[in-house]
């Protein structure tokens, strides 16, 4: 038996690969659930019920999927260009913070304010990633480490702001920032649930990113630069401009995640408002094999795991950290499974 490079990858394999990866991850996690003294099948059934078992559960899950679609797109487009943006978590928070800061006092009607605040969140996220992108282009500093470290700096900065200048005097207990004005809260998508029209924005964003990558000159140059930077440069693609363009787009998407989450769900910013949306976005992107369309599907899956694990924890006593374990395992199994899109086994 040996591995052999595929000439073409059939569509069936493209679709099957993430499913196999997810199955493998669930199988591995089953061992850990069993270690907690719970039948894994029961646990997974609880998980499904918790995320998809009722109308309310489904809306909760989709609410959770919304920011994951944005951060997943942010990672997908960056990784396509071999720009290792691991800083979506930080970009999420600056986007949220900018939205809350401006949205608290902005005196315009909602139809104008909401797009403006989204732009503000995007700008904040884009600027935050522009820094590491600049450092890489100008000084050759690896962006992995800088974006990771910026996540910690941003979280501290958020803490500083919500305990200081942006503190909400009306908030009890945990410190939170001032909320956005009621006029800028996103309308509900399903009445009397937390699900808001941000989900539609996220799906639209996936469509736009697909269009940009697959149909525009910028997208073609981005893919060329990601696969083979040297050949792209030879053909006249400006690498600095492409990298910076991708950085701005990726940062903007992650910033938008924070902006939409504030306007749609939390109103104010807290340091605990993200259960790792930025990091999970990397898994979302990988499970989608970096395809924008796939990002929507994989975000729904990851959201199902997160929301379902909480319910499973309540029902069975399995610590809800199992969700993080499953998500992390998905990343590793997907990485291995992707081998089968480029190779096949021959005997």
């Amino acid at each position, binding site marked *: 038996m040996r591995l052999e490079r595929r000439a073409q990858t059939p569509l069936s394999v493209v679709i099957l690969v993430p499913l196999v990866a997810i199955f493998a991850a669930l199988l591995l996690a089953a061992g850990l659930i069993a270690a907690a003294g719970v039948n894994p099948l029961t646990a997974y059934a609880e998980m499904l019920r918790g995320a998809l078992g009722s109308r309310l559960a489904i809306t909760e899950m989709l609410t959770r999927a919304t920011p994951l679609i944005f951060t997943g797109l942010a990672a997908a487009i960056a990784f396509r260009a071999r720009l290792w943006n691991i800083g979506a978590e930080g970009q999420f928070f600056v986007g949220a913070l900018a939205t809350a800061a401006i949205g608290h006092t902005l005196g315009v009607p909602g139809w104008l304010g909401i797009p403006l605040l989204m732009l503000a969140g995007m700008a904040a996220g884009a600027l935050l990633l522009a820094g590491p992108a600049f450092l890489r282009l100008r000084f050759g500093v690896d962006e992995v480490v800088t974006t990771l470290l910026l996540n910690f700096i941003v979280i501290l900065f958020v803490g500083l702001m919500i305990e200081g200048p942006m503190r909400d005097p009306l908030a009890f207990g945990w410190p939170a920032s001032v909320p956005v004005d009621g006029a800028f809260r996103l309308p509900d998508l399903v009445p009397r649930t937390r699900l808001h029209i941000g989900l539609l924005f996220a799906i639209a964003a996936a469509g736009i990113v697909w269009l940009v990558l697959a149909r525009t000159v910028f997208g*073609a140059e981005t893919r060329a630069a990601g696969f*083979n930077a040297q050949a792209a440069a030879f053909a006249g693609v400006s690498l600095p401009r492409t990298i910076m363009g991708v950085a701005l787009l990726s940062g903007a998407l992650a910033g938008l995640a924070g902006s939409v989450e504030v306007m749609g769900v939390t109103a104010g910013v807290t340091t605990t408002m993200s259960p790792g949306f930025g990091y999970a976005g990397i898994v979302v992107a990988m499970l989608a094999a970096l395809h924008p369309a796939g990002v929507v599907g994989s975000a729904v899956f990851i959201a199902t795991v997160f929301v379902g694990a909480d319910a499973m924890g309540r029902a069975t006593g399995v610590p809800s950290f199992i969700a993080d374990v499953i998500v992390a395992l998905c990343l590793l199994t997907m990485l291995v499974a992707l081998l089968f899109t480029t190779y096949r086994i*021959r005997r």
Partner: protein
Amino acid sequence: MTKVLELTGITKRFGALTANDDVSLSLAQGEILALLGENGAGKTTLMNILFGHYTADAGHIRLFGQDLPPGQPRAAIEAGVGMVHQHFTLAHNLTVLDNIMLGSEPLSRLRSARSGTRTKLIQIADRFGLPVDPDAKISTLSVGERQRVEILKALYRDARVLILDEPTAVLARPEAQRLFETLREMTREGLSLIFISHKLHEVMSASDRVAVLRGGKMVAERVTSQTNPAELAELMVGRKVERPMRQAHKIGAPVLVAKNVSVGPSEARQLEDVSFIVRSGEILGIVGVSGNGQAALGALLSGLTSPSSGSLMLNGIDAARLGPRGLIGNGAGRVPEDRNTEGVVGELSIWENAVLERLRSPDFSHRGFVRRTACKDYAAGLIDRFDIRGATPDTRTRLLSGGNMQKLVLGRVLSNDPQFVLVNQPTRGLDEGAIAAVHSELLAARGNGAAMLLISEELEEAVALSDRIQAIVKGRLSDPVAAEEADPQRLGLMMAGIWTEPENAHAS
């Protein structure tokens, strides 16, 4: 004569490709055997099997009467096989001594025996006439010196059978002659040698016996003194392939003019004060040993670097800082040195590669959106016109064979009717059929009035195609000579840096 090495029935497949098909070969004590064949004939694969880099699917190897276990370089080294790889296997940031010591001591040893190694290394270097400085970093050595280190690595491990893969590819002719003298010396010290080559003249002059591989099969063995270049050429290629010949025609006006161009900071010039003129309908050949500034010249004319001084004019406009897109926009075309790393993006489709250079032109995009139908039609036209086999516009480019990939790169350049074309190592790694196809395309473009600058390390190619030839040595260019006056002797001297210096060089 005793046989030191016997390969029997070696077969090796890579997917659908059979790289070696039932190959048998033997080597006698003290013999120099040349392994002759075209690119892709399976020479390097065969030697890599002998050295244990690959495991054969069938066949076995006997060395000094013992079976050699397959797939273990260490076993091969311990049995007395040494290999000098075409792409040297050296770590550039480490010293000569480091590179030679590696693997010679058991890893469990608590301390490297550096001084002992140094003494033994110097002894061996003296004995075989291969002087080196053990403490020099590899990155500071010339290509010739690096090859010396590569040979010393094998000798240090007491190699008695030495394999050299295309050893002269990186050497100027005098250096190559010296190398073969050294190798002859080694056979007197009891070594037996196999060298891989596709150059007839050095096979004829340096070997005792020739084994010819073609398409993975051993097609003939000859005692060198009983054969001739014509017979070997026929055996090697198997079919009669005529390379097209350059016809005399009228040369037009200058298209590209470089005057006193230097590239790189003054303390480390990559190109020093070079001047040349390329005229319409003319091919100017730049010959030289690899690593003498060809890369910098290629980058300059591709728009990837700018001159630090001097002027570069294309059709009367300043082309010094145009960049790739600007050059193309002003009628230049560029064929890069390495089609895989610079020419194409293997993961993208053929149509995307076909238009990548000119994506922003209105032919191929509109308001930032790619005109996919137009692009694919264009790619289909290229496939048709340049006879790119096994391809549709949607095929992933890395699936093309080397020759077809090169035709794609050539096609996207030539279909644009460029007035100036840079052609950098256009036939490297191609077989005779593909070489002939590439050459006829280049000559056709010349016939259409393109001004071309051909950078080549293959003298035969440069002489066949070029109207005039300049040699590049250490970043400097010789004066041009007409192709008719460029006999091998004279070119060899030029490439070794022996030319009459132009007047202004003595002025200061």
